[in-house]
C-alpha cells in the first residue's frame, strides 16, 4: 500500500517537474523514489497484509512482481534520460506516465478484487497508449498509438464483459468470494463465459496468438525506449495479473481450461518464432520474439501449480534483463547506422566490443542457451509443465526454441564474423556501463538461479 502511494506520489511529482520547471530533478527523484518504493516493498516482505476491505493484498507474490516492474521502470527511465534531453518538450510528462504505469502494474499484481485488476490494467494501458505516441510528428508513432488504443479498447470490452458475467454468476468482485462461490456452485455457463472472456482480455494484453496482431505494428512504431518498456514492464505485469487471477479464482477448475491455454501457448510460440524469421528489421524481430516469449510464459500459467509463481517470476526477470538490453542495443544501432537490419550489426565486435558482448549475452539469454538466465527461465517453466504431464506442449516449446536460435543469432553472427568500415558507434554516457551491468546480471542468474527461483 505504501508502495502504491509512493509510486503515485512520485508520478505526481514528476508531472509537476514539467510544469514547475524543475526538470533536472525529475530523473534523480524518480530513481530515488523507485528505489525507496522497492525498499518499502522489501520491508513489507512476509507481512501479507490486505488493504481496505480486501481490495488488494501485498503478499510476497505482489511485492516480488512489483519490484521487478519497478526495476524495469527504473532502467527505462535511466535509458530515457540518457537518450533524451531534459529540455525536450514532454520529458517530465513521459517520465510521469512511466511512473503512473508502474503504479498501475503494482495494482495489477496485488489485486484481490476484479475492480482493482481492471483499474490497474487500464492505468497501465492508458499510459502506454500515450507513450507509444510520444513522437507526435512521427507517423509510425501515431499509427502505433492509435492502433494500440483501438485494439486495447476492443479487448477491454471483453475483459469488462467477463468481469460482469463473473459478477453475475457469483455476486462479487472479490477473488476470495468468487473462488468460494465457484467452489460451491461449480462452473456454470455464465461463470465459464466470464472466465473465458477474462482470459481473452488478458491474452490480448500479453499478446498471445490470435490476439497478437497489434504487437508488431505497435512495437515497431513506438519510440524504442517505450517499446522496451511495453515489452518488459507491461508484459511482466500482465502475466503476473493473469497468473494471479487464475491462481486466486480458478485454480480448482483448471482441468477445464488448461488445454485451451496450452493450445494458445503452443500456437503462440510457433507462430511468434516462425514469423520472426522473416523480419529484416531487428526491432520488429524483437516484437515477434516477445510474442513467442508470451507463449513460453503461458506454459507456466497453464500448469498453474505450486511452482508456477516462482518460475514465471524467474522468467520475467530473465526476460526483462535480456529484452531491455537488446532493445537498447537496437536503438544504439539505429541511431548510428540509420537502420536496424542484421547487416547494420556488422563488425560490432570490433568497433564496440562491449556492446557486442551485451548483444551476445542478451540474445543467448533470449534463446535460452545455458549459463544465461534465459536458460533457467525456460528450464523452470518447462520442467513444471513436464511434471504435470504436458509433454507435448514442452515438445512444441523446445522445437520453437530451436527455431528461435536462427534469428537470435543473426545479429550476433553479424557482429562478430562480419567486417565493417563504419566508424565506432557513439552513444550517451552511461549506456554502455548499464548494458554491461545487465549482461553480467544475466550471466549471474544463469549460474546462480537459486537467488530468485525459490523466493516466492
Amino acid at each position, binding site marked *: 500500500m505504501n508502495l502504491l502511494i509512493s509510486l503515485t506520489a512520485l508520478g505526481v511529482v514528476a508531472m509537476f517537474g514539467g510544469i514547475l520547471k524543475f526538470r533536472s530533478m525529475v530523473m534523480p527523484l524518480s530513481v530515488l523514489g523507485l528505489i525507496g518504493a522497492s525498499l518499502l516493498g522489501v520491508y513489507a516482505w512476509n507481512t501479507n497484509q490486505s488493504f481496505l476491505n480486501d481490495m488488494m493484498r501485498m503478499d510476497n507474490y505482489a511485492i516480488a512482481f512489483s519490484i521487478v516492474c519497478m526495476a524495469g521502470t527504473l532502467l527505462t527511465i535511466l535509458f530515457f534520460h540518457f537518450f533524451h*534531453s531534459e529540455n525536450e*518538450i514532454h520529458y517530465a*510528462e513521459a517520465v510521469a506516465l512511466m511512473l*503512473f504505469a508502474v503504479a498501475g502494474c503494482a495494482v495489477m499484481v496485488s489485486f484481490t478484487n476484479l475492480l482493482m485488476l481492471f*483499474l490497474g490494467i487500464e492505468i497501465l494501458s492508458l499510459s502506454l497508449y*500515450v507513450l507509444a505516441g510520444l513522437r*507526435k510528428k512521427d507517423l509510425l508513432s501515431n499509427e502505433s498509438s492509435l492502433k494500440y488504443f483501438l485494439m486495447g479498447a476492443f479487448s477491454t470490452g471483453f475483459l469488462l464483459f467477463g468481469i460482469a458475467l463473473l459478477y453475475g454468476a457469483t455476486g462479487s468482485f472479490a477473488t476470495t468470494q468468487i473462488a468460494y462461490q465457484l467452489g460451491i*456452485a461449480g462452473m456454470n455457463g455464465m461463470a465459464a463465459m466470464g472466465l473465458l472472456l477474462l482470459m481473452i482480455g488478458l491474452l490480448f494484453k500479453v499478446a498471445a496468438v490470435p490476439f497478437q496482431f497489434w504487437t508488431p505494428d505497435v512495437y515497431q*512504431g513506438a519510440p524504442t525506449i517505450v517499446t522496451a518498456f511495453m515489452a518488459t514492464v507491461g508484459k511482466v505485469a500482465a502475466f503476473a495479473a493473469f497468473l494471479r487471477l487464475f491462481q486466486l479464482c480458478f485454480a480448482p477448475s483448471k482441468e477445464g481450461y488448461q488445454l485451451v491455454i496450452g493450445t494458445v501457448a503452443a500456437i503462440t510460440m510457433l507462430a511468434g518464432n516462425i514469423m520472426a524469421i522473416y523480419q529484416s528489421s531487428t526491432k520488429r524481430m524483437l516484437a515477434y520474439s516477445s510474442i513467442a516469449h508470451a507463449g513460453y510464459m503461458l506454459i507456466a500459467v497453464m500448469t498453474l501449480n505450486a511452482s508456477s509463481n516462482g518460475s514465471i517470476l524467474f522468467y520475467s526477470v530473465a526476460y526483462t534483463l535480456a529484452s531491455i538490453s537488446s532493445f537498447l542495443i537496437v536503438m544504439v544501432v539505429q541511431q548510428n547506422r540509420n537502420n536496424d537490419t542484421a547487416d547494420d550489426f556488422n563488425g560490432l565486435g570490433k568497433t564496440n566490443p562491449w556492446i557486442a558482448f551485451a548483444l551476445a549475452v542478451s540474445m543467448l539469454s533470449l534463446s535460452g542457451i545455458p549459463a544465461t538466465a534465459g536458460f533457467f527461465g525456460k528450464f523452470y517453466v518447462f520442467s513444471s509443465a513436464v511434471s504435470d504431464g504436458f509433454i507435448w506442449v514442452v515438445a512444441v516449446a523446445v522445437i520453437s526454441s530451436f527455431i528461435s536460435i536462427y534469428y537470435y543469432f543473426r545479429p550476433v553472427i553479424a557482429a562478430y564474423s562480419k567486417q565493417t568500415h563504419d566508424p565506432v558507434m557513439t552513444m550517451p554516457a552511461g549506456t554502455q556501463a548499464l548494458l554491461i551491468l545487465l549482461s553480467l546480471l544475466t550471466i549471474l542468474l544463469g549460474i546462480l538461479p537459486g537467488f530468485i527461483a525459490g523466493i516466492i
Partner: protein
Amino acid sequence: MLTSAFYFIAFVTVFFAVMVIAAKNPVHSVLYLVLTFFGISANYIFILDAPFVGIVNIIVYAGAIMVLFLFVIMLMNLNAEAEHRKSNAFLIVGAFAGGSLLLIVVDAIRKVDWKSVSGQESSGGAIGSIKVLGKVLYTDYILPFEVASVLFLVAIVGAVILARKEKLPLTVGQISHPVSES
C-alpha cells in the same frame, strides 16, 4: 408489467445500437448512439431502480462525450462518402463471426440454471439510490475509487502531451530521425 417494459426498452436500445452501425452518415451514427444511451439510461432508471447511474449516464455519455464526438466529426467534415467501403466478403465473414460470437454467449448464459446461482445481493429498493451508492463508494470501494483518480490523472497528462504543439518536421519511423528531438 416490469418485464414487458424491460423488453420494450431493451428492444429500442438494441434497435438503435444496430442503427449506429447501419447508418451511412457518421452524424446519424452518433445521434443513434445518443439514443442508445438514452435507452440504457431508461433501463437503469425505470427497471433497475438506479436513477443516479441513469442520470450520470445521460450527462456524461449522451451529453459530454457524444457532443465531443459530433464536434470532431463535423470538424473533420466526415460524411457518407468519406466512409471506406469494405468488400462484401469481408462484411459477410464479419457478420458471420460476430453472429456466432453472439450466439455462443447467449447460448452459454441461457443454459444457466438460475437456481444454482447463489450469492446475489437482494436488490432492495434502495440499492441504486445516491445515498447507498455514496456510502458504498466511500467505504467498501474507497480504494478503487481513489485508484480511479490515478487513471484520470494519466488521461489528463496524456491529453496534455497530445494537445501541446511541437515544432518538428513530419517523419515516418525513427530510422532517419535525429538523436535529440528538441
